[in-house]
């Protein structure tokens, strides 16, 4: 049964742009051959909330595709040995909610009872 998946990959942020593009294309080609590839969402460089492999900046890419369930293992075999990929995660695809910034700041108020 085909389902829609999403794979997040964090590339090393200190790499030059061409290298990142090449890696991106490699993944896309693999997906085009083995799945119903749909699109790539590039979020670009972003500061990481904590250091991953001693790096502070990562390059985020989201790959969205339709496939059978066993795709995750095959994909992750590619990513495991690649030094340029810091982290990866495959999940079922759910659309992001579109919400304005003012709504978020106003409505959600948390009481800090921290130690």
């Amino acid at each position, binding site marked *: 049964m085909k389902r829609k998946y999403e794979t997040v990959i964090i590339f090393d942020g200190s790499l030059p742009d061409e290298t990142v593009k090449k890696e991106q294309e490699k993944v896309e080609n693999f997906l085009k051959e083995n799945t119903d590839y749909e699109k790539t969402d590039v979020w670009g460089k972003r500061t990481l909330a904590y250091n991953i492999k001693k790096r502070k900046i990562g390059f985020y890419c989201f790959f969205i595709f339709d496939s059978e369930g066993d795709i995750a293992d095959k994909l992750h075999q590619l990513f495991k040995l690649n030094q340029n990929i810091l982290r990866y995660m495959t999940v079922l695809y759910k659309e*992001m909610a579109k919400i304005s910034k003012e709504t978020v700041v106003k409505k959600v108020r948390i009481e800090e009872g921290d130690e």
Partner: protein
Amino acid sequence: MAGKIRKRRKKICFYCSHHIEPNYKNVEIIERMTTERGKIVPRRMTGTCAKHQRKLAVSIKRARNIAFIPFVSENIH
């Protein structure tokens, strides 16, 4: 001493009122549901409904894995 009984304004679930579902990519919303230290806030404080709190917890844990939010923020007060 017994605790005071205060009337509290009823809190509405953020997700129910906006008709959206928790998603690990909505970092701005997720951040509001964690404390300064990075801990998940209990739903009696945020007013989130049970169903969305479960999904929210999963989203927060995914966001932590992908380094959108920290596991522990080291703020020294």
